[in-house]
């Protein structure tokens, strides 16, 4: 009885997941990389560029220099410069790094941008939420892939 119920549940789910995003806890990593896109809509590099510099979204520029943004006044130095990063890493690796950098770089300061649990004492309004949505994450990955020397 239970089994039958589960099978119907799964088939209903597979219909919906065809259009839905992968939940943060369902993301599959291999060697720090994430092969499968988290969404069914391909990433928008222009949107990703905005997310990269937006202080309330990616704020990647807080830690990474990026020659693609000469008009932005302040570029951080905590992480490596991301100029040309799209030529150094594969798409799946970039997706893994931005989703949860700790899977690629043990103990890194870089936050996981698509994690919604496991952190301590979050401010209430961020509790149970990831920094970026699945689509925003794909947008950032699409943008990083445009950064070639």
């Amino acid at each position, binding site marked *: 009885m239970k089994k039958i119920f589960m099978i119907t549940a799964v088939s209903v789910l597979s219909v919906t997941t065809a259009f839905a995003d992968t939940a943060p806890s369902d993301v599959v990593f291999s060697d720090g990389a994430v092969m499968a896109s988290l969404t069914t809509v391909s990433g928008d590099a222009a949107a990703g560029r905005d997310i990269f510099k937006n202080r309330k979204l990616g704020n990647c520029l807080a830690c990474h220099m990026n020659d693609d943004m000469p008009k932005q006044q302040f570029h951080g130095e905590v992480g490596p410069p991301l100029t040309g990063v799209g030529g150094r890493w594969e798409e799946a690796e970039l997706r893994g790094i931005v989703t949860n950098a700790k899977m690629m770089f043990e103990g890194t300061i870089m936050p996981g941008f698509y994690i919604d649990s496991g952190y*301590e004492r979050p401010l209430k309004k961020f509790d149970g939420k990831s920094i970026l949505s699945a689509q925003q994450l794909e947008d950032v990955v699409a943008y990083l892939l445009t950064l070639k020397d």
Partner: protein
Amino acid sequence: MELKTLLTSMVIIGFSAGLVSAQADATLAVEGEVISTSASAPAFAENLDTVYSGWRFRKLETRSLQLDDFDNPAFVFVDKGIDLFEKVDGTEGKACASCHEDVEDFAGLRPKMPRVEDGTLVTMENLVNECRTERMGAEPWKYSGGQMTAVTALIGLQSRGMSVNVAFDGDAAPFFERGQELYYQRVGQLDMSCSNCHEDNYGVMIRADHLSQGQINGFPTYRLKNAKLNSAHARFKGCMKNIRATPYKEGGDEFKALELYLAARGNGLSVETPSVRN
């Protein structure tokens, strides 16, 4: 009350401007007397050789505001502190000055704070409020409020130039250990610890901010950002909110322990109160 320290003048010797990727190679002096903005790191701070005051990491314009007390915007508040120190308040009809005739007698207190009394960790703010409630019959001041920071700045100033020398062994040890734990604990949605920024990355830019070691030898500190004096606990709270963590309570056990741990990390630096930061 005469504050000869109000008339001190400070000069920078041998600064090198424009350094952004490391702490400035500068010396801060008061009336020709050098104020240590660096010291060798205490043995327990295994990942540091040298400790540096936050003053070293600020831009030249900000650093220079601290060179002369007439330029230092914190002194407007220190003056308020003098008024508050002399103001009678509470049911006993007393002012701070009724018992502490000369505020200069507090020279030497700041470098030893926080300290353990009868098994309790006590901060400067606690001492002030204890006098208010126990001896003056007055209401306690808000932990990081304007009256409190004005008076803790005035008291701290009496020790300016003295080396921070806080005890962290003996009965202070458990508080120190708790503080150390908190310093290295990752918190918030960004999942970072104090050490991630202030130990692993001091000297580099995090967007528009030049990361310092997060030392507390200059507190309460005047910030250009909010144009007032800020307590150490208010600063801890701000850093925690930036990493999207729920801050601990100002004046609570966690922040007091963190304060003791940070004070000990800065043992050997000079008291710089009231410092100027951005």
